[in-house]
């Protein structure tokens, strides 16, 4: 199924990536090229096959739900583009 510019606009919005209008058509062409190539998977018979989520051939481990580490607020905030006291700062969300 070929992607049209409207669908590309929707994917860009979901991806939170700004895409200029004049980029929609070239992007559609690139992504359609990749998706067209991926369509070959439709020829594989997957009836009754359980999906495989990962390469780890083992059961996931459980651990106690307790705090094991922390107390580094300053270290963590050191990389923040903007901060306000001990908080990350963002553009105003609620008026």
């Amino acid at each position: 199924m070929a992607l049209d510019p409207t669908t590309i606009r929707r994917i860009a919005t979901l991806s939170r990536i700004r895409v200029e209008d004049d980029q929609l058509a070239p992007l559609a062409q690139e992504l359609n090229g990749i998706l067209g190539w991926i369509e070959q998977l439709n020829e594989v018979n997957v009836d009754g096959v359980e999906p495989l989520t990962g390469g780890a051939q083992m059961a996931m481990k459980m651990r106690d739900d307790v705090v094991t580490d922390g107390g580094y607020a300053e270290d963590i905030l050191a990389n923040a583009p903007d901060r306000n006291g001990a908080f990350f700062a963002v553009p105003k969300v609620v008026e």
Partner: protein
Amino acid sequence: MLTDLTIAQAQTGLRAKQFTAEELTEAHLRGIGTLNPRLNAFLTVTAEQAREQAKAADAAIAKGDIRPLTGIPLAIKDLFCTKGVRTTAASMILSPFVPPYESTVTANLLRDGAVFVGKTNLDEFAMGSSNMSSAFGPVENPWKRRQDQNAVLVPGGSSGGSAAAVSARLAMGATGTDTGGSIRQPASFCGLVGVKPSYGRCSRWGVVAFASSLDHPGPFARTVQDSAILLRSMASHDPKDSTSADRSVPDYEAACKRGVKGLRIGVPREYRVDGMPAEIEALWEQGVQWLRDAGAEIVDVSLPHTKYGLATYYIVAPAEASSNLARYDGVRFGQRQDGGDLTEMYSNTRAAGFGAEVRRRIMIGTYVLSAGYYDAYYLRAQKVRALILRDFHEAFQKVDALITPTTPSAAFAQGEKMDDPVQMYLNDLFTVGANLAGVPATSVPAGLDSNGLPLGLQIIGKPFDEETVFAVSAEIERAAGFTALPQIRAGA
């Protein structure tokens, strides 16, 4: 030349006090100073830190406290978080990021006495097979075509800077990560040994995530023995990575000496693809013959879903990437671009911070996970992935390891294969299966093509049986007697 020593030789020389760790580190830093402006293998050179670590190594040696990597200069792919040292993933969006913590793999190397000379270049977020997608410029492969010395070749990718650094003798070994071939393909292009261990063998904690179910940290080195020394140090069970394997780490160096007598080695017929260069086919035949001569039994095997590996990968990897890279929102770390409101700030930040290939993969991943398309793409790919794993399981009922070419071509020139993303993706044709199945695999330099460029053979093993993979790899290395050197290297 100190820079021509293997890690094993340097260990011996340091212990015998033939030279100091400071001298060894200085020799590599000089090489970096001379060659890095041209090769662009390092994004950050940590010269002062390396000198301090080397001084500490000499003090430890004087006291008799010698660890497996004491005083050995290593390069670290700039995808591993290093405490207090900028870690960029070769992306503008992370360009100001200084991690307040150390990845488990690099912490293991430091525990064992290693010296870190710098952080190496890569394809942005490890997405690529040429190192051309780095936000900080491409890397030059230290090898040249015999007939065309002017062509600037790619080192492969994504771990292109690590491969170029070890090949050019700017470090004795390096860390890489391999999500679809990102250690083995550059190892093949640069005449090195590259190891992608089993999924879970090396912790992913502190490694910038691309596709979590496919990402594998592993080493680069110039010999199989050196790669075994590095892997033993890098590997560990790590409670901070829920997919880390709770298994003891064997003595891989000892496994290199086992030989292949009595082993059953499979040759997967589906890897004989149309259009494969005759010299790669011939090298593969030669590799099979070397193992037969050394006493292995050669068995024809089938991995019927091989041809679907890449398409499966290009659904699964972008899907996981779109989720992993959602964290780059300009709020907690990295670069921010302002916007009128929060959503616009996110969109502007991500448009400015991610390069074209990363944006493309995030969008593909978002699409295949979106409502209405999830079953058709993502779920189907996960089912094909299960069939690919089943292929390997069935083959390993009959054989102990597999031998294949690593790549369908030798190193190509910068600018080639850039017009069509799918052409670039085809580089990982032979390597991607081991990532989907989580099985260990190496690339070992085995010969040169008609241009004098290195070609690798790939050895694939059973889950967590790296020892057999090392045994077979060492036999290929012995038989190949690969001694060719890159034209661009420290001291040349």
